[in-house]
Structure formats: structure tokens, C-alpha cells
């Protein structure tokens, strides 16, 4: 997207040649104005967008503007100045500056729009806001005039000490933790959107300067560190919430959704089998947990410990997975998608009907099973508030840790399978089933295994979900939920871990924080699916191999994938 905007806003070469020398001073002036502006008052009304009305004491959104300005300053100094000899050959500073200019301008324009919308009229924007907006405009103009660096070296050759790489990873992870905590702390929609624009701007700068490419290479070199750091960050997230459970409730939902989507990712992303009824497995786990729980409405009079319940739920789900997977022997492609959709509907209708009059009493029909008590493992009750290091961790935080462990387990299963003989078999089936079979891959067995493993993981997630949601009912497991799970995978990038986590977070988090658009949530969801398939079918975080499947004629990409594969084998 950013690429498109930047390309369209490109000035003709003749203009760049003629006035290019003004670009750098103009950009510097812009940066200076933004920083000066950010220390002045932006808004007359102290009650909008946090408090932006004080001089010399920047509020949260003003600090964000300063951060972008400082990044731009560093880039300017790379174009011409003390940082040039060190970073010049590696960092594409000119393109980074263009991204910075564009996004800072969008950011400031939205700030002005936000203040005038919330406080009632442009009159409420104080001089500081206008100064910063002017600065953004100057930076925008200046960055267009700076000619892109002619020769850049290949970033995969950039060598820095591995301790430094690890440090960068740690800093990035910490930034993500603080960013997430900060974003979730924004109460009003404007601030939240503005933070998203800020984050989008930083990402765009990272992409354009090549930082993201370098980070990608270095994180491949330090994969274990990265994974560990990510989980440490996720682990410490509840401690940033100061005992408040509101955001933790959203976070637990994101985790359940992500864990389920990751299970589906095995079926769709790795094995390439489209499953449109996947939410049934989550439901199977949840229903088993509910029926075996201590709820007064539970229908089975057997109360095993939760570990047994988990295994039962996952086992039932896996059995269903085997049943649903069995037609894969004969049907494939679109037909399989419809078969799974049919199974999903059968599951929902069965849960709806098994109420004692239309079938055996198992699920209480449309009423579902309410009042499921909180989990109790040993003497640890998940409903109670516990105090750790002086920070109160309430109900949702407890579930959060359990779900985090689950997600870690799911990701472990996913990556281990992906890098195994089984995973390579799946890739072979996905890319060409007949060829795979001819090479001796047990296609039917592997496809069944994909369904069973995926269902097992979703079943596990379901057993916890039942306790966390307190109730289960058939309308939680409709087709739309399966579509959402699929969308998380498609949006993020099929077959990737990071992409699916990102997709799941976006799809669950945005509607929660943007309440004003909850009415239009599904409308945008539908539109998003269509646009994604049109413009970026491989997802936000694409695995190269997937990308190639969607862009077969792209020769350059094919070469890149080949060399990457060679690198992997060599390692």
C-alpha cells in the first residue's frame, strides 16, 4: 500500500535534479518544526486525545510524533552527515524518508482532524499543532526532493556481532510489549487509530529502509532467541496492566483465537486442505469440557480432573477430525471445502438438537450449558485473584498464562511438524498431490493426520475456552466463526507462524478497540477478504514459497526461493 502511495507521489526526475539540493535542508527544517511543535500545546481542550494542551510537556501522542521526527532526523543524517560513512551503503535512507514524510503527514492531519472532530471545530487546534503539521508538510516535500541512493549493498551480507543482533531483537520485543500495552490502554478510538498510524509509519519506514529485511535475516540466524524473547514479552504482558482485567479479557480471546487458527494453519497452510467447518472442533472440545464440568447443567455425571477432560475433549475432536478427514481419500479441492462446511453445519445443528426431546440429552439444545465453574488445578483456582510481585493478577490473567502455555505448545507442534518428514510430505501434497504420491508420499495418511492433529489442537483450546467463557451454546460455533479463523490465516500469511499470530491479533483486537465500528465490522471483514485476495493473496507475512505459488511468473522471486532453500539445506 505504502509502496503504491509513494510511487504515485513521486516527482519527475527533472524537478528532483533541479531542486534536489533543497531537499535536505527542507527535511531538516521539517523535523525541527515537528519537534518544536510537539513541545507546544496542540489542543485548546485538555479532554480530547489524552491531554495535548500543555506547553513544554508533551502528551502521549506528541511523544509519538517526536519519535517519528527523531527517526527521520537519523535518516537525514544518513543521507548527508556523520552517519553516512557507517550506514550509507546499507540503509536506503531516501526511501525511508519518503515513507516517514508520508506517514507523519497522515498522522498530523489525523491529529488535526481528531481534535476538531472531538472538541468541535478547527478553532480548538492550538499553534503547536499547526507548527507540527507544517513541519510534517516540509518533511514530506523535502523527502520527495532527495534523490534515492544509487548503490546499496545486499543486506543479507550485512555482518554485525551476534550479541548486537540479539540486543536489537530484545529491543524490538520490548518495543512491541510497550507498544501493545500502550495501544490497549487507549480508551478512545481516535487515540487508538492514531497509534496504529504511528505503528504503521514505523513499519513502513522499516520496510523502505531495508531494516525489516535485515531484521528478517538476523532473526533467521537467531531464531531461538527470537522465539524465546517473544514468549518472554507475552509472559510479561499481564504485569503491564496494573491489575486491570479489561484488556486481559481481550487478550485471552486473542490467544484462544490464535491457538485455534494455528491448528487450522496445519490443515490449510501446511497440507493445503481447505476446511470451512473448523470451528466445530473447537466446539467439540468446549462441549466435552462443559459436559464433564461441575456445572449444575452438565449432562454427564463423571467429573474427572481437568487434564483428563482436556485429553477427552481433544480426543473427541481428533476423532471427529478423522471422520471429517476421511472423505479426503476421494474428494479434493473445492469439494472438500464444501464437505467440511457440511460437517460444520451438522455439528452446530446436532448441538442445537440434542436437548432431550429431539435426541438424547447432551447439550441442552439452544440454551447450551451455562454456569461452568472456573478451572481448579490442584489448589490453584483460576477464578481468584492472585498477587505476584505486588501486582494483582485477576481471573483473565490466570487464564492468559494457561492459554499462553497452550499457544506455545501449539506453535511447537506446528514448527516441529513443519520441519519434519511429515511437514515436507504436506508441502508436497499441497503443491502437487499426484507427483507427491508418485514419489511415495502416503497422501491419504498424511491428509488424515493433518485433520486429526489440527482437530486435536482445536479441541484442547476448546476445553479451556469453555471454562473461560463460563458457558457454551451452539451459536458460538457458526460458519462465520470458521470463516474468521480462515481469514486470520489468509490475512496473516498461510503456513507461517508470525503471520497467523498477526492475523489473529488484528481480527480479534481491532473490533474490540474500535467499538464505534462494531456495527460495520462484518461489512469490512467481507471487503477485507475480497481485497486481500485481489491485491495480496499471500498474506501480510508471506512465506516466500507461498508467495511463489501465487505469483508463478515472478522469475526473481523463484530465484530467491531457490537460493533460500539451498541455504536451508546447507545449514
Amino acid at each position: 500500500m505504502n509502496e503504491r502511495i509513494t510511487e504515485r507521489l513521486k516527482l519527475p526526475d527533472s524537478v528532483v535534479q533541479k531542486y534536489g539540493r533543497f531537499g535536505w535542508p527542507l527535511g531538516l527544517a521539517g523535523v525541527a518544526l515537528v519537534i518544536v511543535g510537539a513541545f507546544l500545546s496542540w489542543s485548546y481542550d485538555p479532554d480530547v486525545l489524552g491531554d495535548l494542551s500543555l506547553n513544554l510537556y508533551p502528551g502521549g501522542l506528541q511523544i509519538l510524533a517526536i519519535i517519528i521526527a527523531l527517526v527521520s532526523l537519523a535518516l537525514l543524517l544518513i543521507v548527508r552527515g556523520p552517519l553516512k560513512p557507517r550506514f550509507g551503503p546499507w540503509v536506503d535512507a531516501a526511501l525511508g524518508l519518503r515513507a516517514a514524510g508520508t506517514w507523519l503527514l497522515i498522522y498530523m492531519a489525523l491529529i488535526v482532524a481528531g481534535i476538531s472532530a472531538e472538541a468541535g471545530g478547527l478553532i480548538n487546534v492550538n499553534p503547536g499543532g499547526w507548527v507540527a503539521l507544517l513541519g510534517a508538510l516540509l518533511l514530506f516535500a523535502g523527502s520527495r526532493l532527495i534523490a534515492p541512493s544509487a548503490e546499496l549493498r545486499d543486506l543479507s551480507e550485512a555482518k554485525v556481532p551476534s550479541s548486537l543482533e540479539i540486543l536489537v531483537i530484545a529491543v524490538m520485543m520490548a518495543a512491541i510489549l510497550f507498544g501493545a500495552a500502550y495501544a490497549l490502554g487507549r480508551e478512545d478510538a481516535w487515540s487508538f487509530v492514531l497509534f496504529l498510524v504511528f505503528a504503521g509509519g514505523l513499519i513502513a519506514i522499516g520496510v523502505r529502509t531495508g531494516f525489516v529485511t535485515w531484521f528478517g535475516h538476523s532473526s533467521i540466524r537467531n531464531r531461538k532467541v527470537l522465539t524465546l524473547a517473544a514468549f518472554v514479552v507475552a509472559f510479561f504482558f499481564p504485569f503491564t496492566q496494573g491489575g486491570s482485567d479489561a484488556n486481559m479479557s481481550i487478550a485471552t480471546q486473542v490467544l484462544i483465537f490464535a491457538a485455534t487458527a494455528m491448528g487450522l494453519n496445519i490443515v490449510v497452510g501446511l497440507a493445503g486442505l481447505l476446511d470451512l467447518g473448523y470451528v466445530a472442533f473447537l466446539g467439540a472440545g468446549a462441549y466435552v469440557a462443559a459436559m464433564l464440568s461441575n456445572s449444575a447443567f452438565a449432562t454427564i455425571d463423571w467429573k474427572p480432573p481437568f487434564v483428563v477432560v482436556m485429553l477427552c475433549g481433544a480426543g473427541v475432536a481428533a476423532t471427529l477430525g478423522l471422520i471429517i478427514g476421511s472423505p479426503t481419500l476421494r474428494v479434493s479441492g473445492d469439494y472438500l471445502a464444501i464437505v467440511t462446511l457440511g460437517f460444520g453445519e451438522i455439528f452446530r445443528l446436532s448441538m442445537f438438537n440434542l436437548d432431550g426431546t429431539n435426541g438424547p440429552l447432551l447439550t441442552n439444545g439452544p440454551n447450551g450449558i451455562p454456569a461452568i465453574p472456573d478451572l481448579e488445578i490442584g489448589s490453584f483456582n483460576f477464578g481468584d485473584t492472585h498477587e505476584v510481585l505486588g501486582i494483582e493478577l485477576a481471573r483473565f490473567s490466570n487464564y492468559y498464562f494457561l492459554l499462553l502455555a497452550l499457544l506455545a505448545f501449539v506453535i511447537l507442534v506446528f514448527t516441529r511438524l513443519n520441519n519434519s518428514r511429515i511437514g515436507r510430505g504436506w508441502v508436497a501434497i499441497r503443491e502437487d498431490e499426484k507427483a507427491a504420491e508418485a514419489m511415495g508420499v502416503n497422501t491419504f495418511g498424511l491428509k488424515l493426520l493433518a485433520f486429526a492433529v489440527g482437530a486435536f489442537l482445536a479441541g484442547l483450546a476448546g476445553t479451556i475456552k469453555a471454562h473461560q467463557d463460563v458457558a457454551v451454546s451452539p451459536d458460538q460455533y457458526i460458519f462465520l466463526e470458521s470463516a474468521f479463523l480462515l481469514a486470520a490465516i489468509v490475512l496473516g500469511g498461510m503456513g507461517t507462524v508470525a503471520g497467523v499470530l498477526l492475523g489473529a491479533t488484528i481480527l480479534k483486537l481491532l473490533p474490540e478497540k474500535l467499538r464505534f465500528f462494531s456495527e460495520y465490522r462484518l461489512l469490512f471483514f467481507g471487503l477485507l477478504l475480497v481485497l486481500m485476495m485481489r491485491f495480496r493473496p499471500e498474506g501480510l507475512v508471506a512465506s516466500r514459497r507461498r508467495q511463489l505459488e501465487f505469483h508463478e511468473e515472478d522469475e526473481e522471486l523463484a530465484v530467491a526461493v531457490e537460493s533460500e532453500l539451498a541455504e536451508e539445506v546447507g545449514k
Partner: protein
Amino acid sequence: MDQFFQQLINGLTLGSLYALIAVGYTVVYGIVQLINFAHGEVFMIGAFGALSTYLLLFDDQTQVWILPIMLIGAIAASVITAVLMERVAYRPLRNAPRLAPLITAIGISVFLQEAVRLFYDKIPGFPSAKQRIPFPQIDVVTGPAIQIGDVTIQRAGIFTMAALAVCSALLWYFVNRTRLGRGMQAVSQDPDTASLMGINVDRIIVVAFAMGAVLAAIAGVSQGLQNSNIDFRMGFLAGLKAFTAAVLGGIGNIQGAVVGGLVLGVVEAMAIEYIPGQFGGSSWKDVWAFVILILVLVFRPQGLLGARVVDRA
């Protein structure tokens, strides 16, 4: 025995509706090998198009001559939706991997449902589509049911069956006797060769979408008359059942879609009556329909009448 005939009639009524929608799936599939998952929404929009025409032009009237005009309104709404959908969403994906159009179709489906739900009452004088909306009652085609012996036949049911009969005849004529129809057959057999023979494949695809939309619109009106109300969700289940019908008959095969629809409707009706015990009755009929879908796909993917062998990953 009366019960049998009663359920047979009910089944045929239901089946006619499925058949009308199923033709749309089958025609599009036969030509571009695409499951147009959003076809159920085309059907829903047809019903809303008819209702809109009624509300705009003939509010509170019940004469039978209104019906053809409502049908035209329904057809216009459906055809415009289907053609736009093909042009904007599907055409750019024609050579993409199979997953892409299917996901697009889900997206379109959700989008259209929501668009109707959210924006229908923004048109002045129209009711909110967030709940069920009563569908106008028209003389002759709705009203007191007809009794033959102990068998009750709803008038709207007769309309549906008659519509299916007329549409099938016209469809047969169109596909087998007109230039465009034969072009369609050619494209479905081999698009590359067909285009070498001077057939405009893009145009044929648009025609296929439009043709499916016409029948879906008629089905939408029939459903409105039968249930005397419509809502924005009506396309999902009907679309799924109709797809089942298309598969049952052999997808890609137009006669198959009609036969499949009728068979599915009758089986569903009979399941209500004749499956004993707790798993019979109307609350399980949808389950049986899906069970049939799965069994057919697994054991006879070419369908009852058979079609081109479908073997694609």
C-alpha cells in the same frame, strides 16, 4: 398414503426452489470451475429487489399483474449484483490458485449480507432489514391453500413448481438452440479452443452469471411468497442446500441441477415423515440434507446424472 403424497408435494415445492438456485451454481461451475459461494446472496438480493419494486411502485396493492413487474425488479437486482461480482471480484482472479476465488466468494457473501442488513432502511420508505420483513401477498399466487383429497397444496408452491417448469423449458431452448447457449457449451468443454473459434469467453462467463442470477431472482420471489417474509440471512442455508442439489445432480450439468434439486427436496420431506424416533422430524432435516451432500461427494462425486469427471486439487 395421504401423508406420503402430502410430503411428496412439500418435497417437490421445496425441491423446485432448490433447483432454481442450483442452476446458477452448476452453470457457473461448468464454465469457470468456480463454486460461486455468494450465489445464495444473489438469491437473497433477488427477493429484496422484488420487495423494493413493490414498495416503490405498488405499496398495499395485491393484484396479480404486479407479480411480473416484481419479478422484473428482482431479476434486475440479482443480475446487476451477479455481473458486478463477476467483473470486480472474480475476473481478476481467473488464473489464481483455487483457494483465492473461494475465499473471495466467502468475503462477497458476508459483504452482501451485511450491506443489505445495514443499508436497506437507509432508502427512504423502506423497512429495516435487521429483522424479518413481511413479503407482499399477491392475489392468485398466495391465499387459501388448495385441497385435493387430504393433500394440501399451497398456492405459492404451485407458483414455484410452475416457475421451475417454465424456466427449465426456456433454459433448455437457450442452451441448445441459441448461438449464445451453444457458445456456452463450447466454452464449458474447452475454453481455449472455444476462444480460438471466435467465442468471446469473457462475455460467455458474464452471461452464465447473469443466467444463474435470473433463476435465483425468481427463486427469491418464490421463497418470499411461500414464507411470506424474507431476511438478509435467507441466502446462506438456501445456497448451501442448492449447492448440495447441484452436486447431487452432477455439477456442471443443467438437467442434473433440476433433478438434484427435486430429489433433495423430496428426500428432505420424506426424512421428516419417515425417519423414526428422535432423529426424525423437522429439526433434523437439515442434518440429513448435509449427510446426503457428504455421502454423494464421497461416493458419487460425479452426481446422479453424471457430469464431466471433476478431478482437481
